[in-house]
């Protein structure tokens, strides 16, 4: 699809990500979702925080903003409230979204603000040198866990479900056609939509955990995940060590900017009396 090129800042290419890094695959999927929905690229705002994923807005020809660590959703909330006609997409890594930005994430979900939050989960802080993140699996190695991670990880989707949100999904970069569907579903949703994408970081996570090449890591995504429909029929024992993927929640709920507009109208009415 040569059309993808229309959404890319070609003068910035080739991009900075390592060979085989999944972040570029996620970027392609987001671009196809925007294109499929025929949203004008000038009506899209892409916001990121810090980390390898934070580079994505630099390469996309939308309105783009690269902000501070963990604060993509705070900036995105301001943008959406100031101009609700924008389609706002945040791109965050697991460290960015769940550690330093964890509070912003749960409160964006609680408000149910119309933002698509993409969380690229590669189990590690890639850019800053391979420190463990809140999703690093128990026993995995990181520069800050040379004897293996001792803390249990978050289940990202349960955390968000408990906080609010209208749309919750998990995909992998291996299951790319499914990921395209999940991301465009999230983009269409009016409300807070979260798509967690399991992605490979061959440089910082794969190497330290002896997982082999990007290709090997993607094969694991195939072997170690099960679709949500199939998982429903599996026992706890069978699901051990598996990650469930697919659509987990798709609900109509009152959206924050709409509620806010109503509040403004009401306040004006009171003052005119």
């Amino acid at each position, binding site marked *: 699809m040569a059309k993808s090129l229309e959404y890319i800042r070609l003068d910035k290419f080739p991009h900075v990500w390592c060979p085989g890094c999944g972040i570029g695959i996620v970027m*392609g999927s987001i671009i196809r979702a925007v294109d499929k929905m025929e949203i004008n690229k000038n009506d899209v705002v892409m916001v990121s925080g810090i980390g390898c994923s934070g580079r994505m807005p630099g390469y996309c020809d939308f309105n783009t903003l690269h902000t501070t660590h963990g604060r993509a959703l705070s900036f995105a909330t301001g943008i959406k409230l100031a101009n609700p006609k924008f389609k706002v997409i945040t791109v965050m890594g697991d460290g960015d979204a769940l550690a330093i930005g964890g509070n912003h994430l749960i409160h964006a979900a609680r408000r149910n603000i119309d933002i698509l939050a993409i969380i690229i989960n590669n189990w590690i802080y890639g850019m800053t040198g391979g420190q463990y993140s809140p999703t690093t699996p128990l026993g995995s190695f990181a520069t800050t866990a040379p004897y293996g991670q001792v803390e249990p990880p978050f289940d990202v989707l349960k955390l968000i479900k408990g906080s609010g949100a209208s749309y919750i999904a998990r995909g992998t970069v291996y299951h790319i056609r499914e990921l395209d569907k999940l991301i465009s579903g999230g983009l269409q949703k009016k409300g807070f939509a979260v798509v967690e994408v399991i992605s490979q970081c061959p440089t910082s996570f794969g190497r330290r955990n002896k997982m082999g*090449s990007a290709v090997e890591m993607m094969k694991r995504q195939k072997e170690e995940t099960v679709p949500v429909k199939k998982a429903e029929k599996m026992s706890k024992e069978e699901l051990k060590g598996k990650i469930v993927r697919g659509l987990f929640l798709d609900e109509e709920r009152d959206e924050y900017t709409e509620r806010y507009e109503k509040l403004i109208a009401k306040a004006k009415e009171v003052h005119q009396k």
Partner: protein
Amino acid sequence: MSGEKVKLKGIEWKRYGPLLLNREWCKGCGICVAFCPKNVLKIGEDSKVFVDKEEDCTSCTLCELRCPDFAILVER
């Protein structure tokens, strides 16, 4: 296999049947090669992708969808 030169958005690509390659952007990760259902693609001695069996390509687009570097386009 040299491929016909094509310019898209001011950037040079090479055409092999339905496939367009930008070897400048390719980082040789091998993802497209490993997951092509028809074994059309290979990594060359220069550690970049090349089209080995153009005639077997079904234009399924999986290589384009999974390439992290936007280095392959499939025309249908």
